[in-house]
């Protein structure tokens, strides 16, 4: 099966671990597509999203001038990688591509003609979304089977952004839904769902970190099902859910307090 990983950053530990897990299951990806924006655009976006103060703080943290706020958070992804004999979990995707002889495509935009043509010409079966942005119609219809996405919430109830936080806000069970991407926002066919257990002393950050590991496990499970033609696609009933948006920090604080 021809698998492609899409990422929006050259440094993506989640994608790195996923690639090595796929290799372990003899499903080595054919290509890594990195749709990373230029540093200037990234800086501009960061300034717009977080403001100048947070951006400066982040730059300081990046260059280890300032302490990282989450440095004490448990790194579930690292633990999982080491437990699964993946020592290179934190190296760049370009290095992984060289080391593992996987094709590497660096593009500015995941929806570019170059990316679409690549998927079609290499007869790619599945694209695994490990970050890449919003997929447009041409890209969505390019792979033979489809694009797989691990969504950090229960579908169809919670679509959109910060769904882990929204699920917690409403006291709903939390988990990851593996689904195909279609033209809507998280409206594609559902393959699998796995709940995330909440332990005492958890925070939004630790639950997010935990969910990355579950994303990988579900992705591997889903690929196996598809490979063996055992998958069951569940059509979503859109009216059973709502689209959510970025949660305001005051509500996030409330959610964190309630954990």
């Amino acid at each position, binding site marked *: 099966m021809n698998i492609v990983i899409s990422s929006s950053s050259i440094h993506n530990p989640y994608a790195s671990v996923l690639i090595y897990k796929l290799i372990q299951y003899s499903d080595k990806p054919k290509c890594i597509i990195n749709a990373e924006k230029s540093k200037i655009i990234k800086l501009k976006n960061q300034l717009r999203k977080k403001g100048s103060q947070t951006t400066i703080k982040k730059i300081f943290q990046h260059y280890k001038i300032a302490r990282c706020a989450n440095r004490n958070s448990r790194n579930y992804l690292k633990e999982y990688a080491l437990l699964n004999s993946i020592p290179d979990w934190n190296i760049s995707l370009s290095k992984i591509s060289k080391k593992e002889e996987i094709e590497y495509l660096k593009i500015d935009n995941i929806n570019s003609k170059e990316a679409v043509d690549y998927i079609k010409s290499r007869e790619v079966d599945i694209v695994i979304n490990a970050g890449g942005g919003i997929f447009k119609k041409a890209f969505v219809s390019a792979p033979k089977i489809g694009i797989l996405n691990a969504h950090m919430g229960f579908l169809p109830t919670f679509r959109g952004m910060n769904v882990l936080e929204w699920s917690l806000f409403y006291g709903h069970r939390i988990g990851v839904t593996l689904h195909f991407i279609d033209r809507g926002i998280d409206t594609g066919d559902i393959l699998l769902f796995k709940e995330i257990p909440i332990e005492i002393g958890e925070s939004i950050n630790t639950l997010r970190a935990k969910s990355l590991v579950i994303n990988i496990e579900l992705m591997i499970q889903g690929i196996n099902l598809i490979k063996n033609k055992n998958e069951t696609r569940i059509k979503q009933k859109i009216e059973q859910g709502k689209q959510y948006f970025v949660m*305001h920090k005051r509500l996030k604080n*409330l959610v964190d307090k309630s954990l």
Partner: protein
Amino acid sequence: MKVNSFIKIIEIIRKIGSNSYFLMKIYRKPSHLKIILSDLLKVNNKIYDDKDHLKAAMEWLCRAQDIANCGGVSGGYSFVKGWMPPYPETTGYIIPTFLQYSLLNNDNSYIERAVKMGDWEIEIQLPSGAVRGGMGINEYSVIFNTGQVILGWTSLYKETKLNRFLEAATKAANWLLSVQDDDGKWSKHTYKEIPHVYHTRVAWPLLNLYKLTNEDKYKIAAEKQIFWGLSHAKENAWFDLMGFTTNKTPLTHTIAYTLRGLIESSIYSEGKSKNIILNLVQKAAERIMMRYELRKKDLDSIPMHLPATLNEKWKSKDKYSCLTGNAQIAIIWLKMYKISNDARFLNAALKIIDQVKASQSLDSKNLGIRGGIAGSYPIWGKYDRFTYQNWSTKFLADSIMLQESTMREMEENRN
């Protein structure tokens, strides 16, 4: 992009004052220039605690009242005209804001100020009972303005039990009933001499008066107006005639007037009609929320400002925002959260209130700017260009007070 914006500002300034007199007025103060430059460079003010923003807004309103020196509140501060004359309509609906703030801070001076406003409104009430239109003392009467002052008088009566306020409200309401069309609309004594669906906000004060007097005629008149308004609703919860004029897309300011009138009036409705009203408002509020939340360059960034006007498809091409409307829409969302328990409304309200707060200068040396809220963002936007309004400042104060009580209530319920 910045160069284009700069050229645009120069063009606008040229348009509004083709002579150097107006240009001089706008630029004569460094405080004016500072606002223009920060809006041009999109530099927002720091967001402080809600109490600080609320206090600054209330102090600005007190200043606007003191400057008018009659009890009424100056309409606002303009870069061109300076402080403006007192505004009967908005002074009327500023009264409940002062009463609520007084209760929140246990400060009676705000009740005294509200009483002065109410007395000034009585002093200038037209012999017919109507309220004067426009800013200053004009001889013409306006339906909408009359309704807004009734809101003030009825809230003052509830607070003080002083009969003069109830009498003034009754006289004004009787005038409203005397000029109402048979189908419930008002087509005379209206802004631009056309009927408006935002007169639902006139039905609301009539219902308040009905509650105080038990006189059915006020309830009947209000219900007629609401039904007339509902007859203009489309499938997508859009209402025709929501704007100041029929040839321009309505501002979020008048859209919010319409929706607020419907929400408050629904309190007096029951059964099917209550459901119809609230379903329509919820649908409209959701459309506006989606328009706002999806207006961003990246999925995980905060939304850009809500456009100033919306068309019948709830869409817009505007590149400026109506800050007055934004604060009012925040109130609609907060109220819809309480009604529907859909926290996306609360979430959107928190974000949009932050944006309005970020436009409020808490340290300007210019007392016309400090604590006030402009009509438009950027300041040269088409709605009340280069002007800090008493009503946008009032709506920010209202939205913060409602936001805080909503958050407090929610926190208590979650604990």
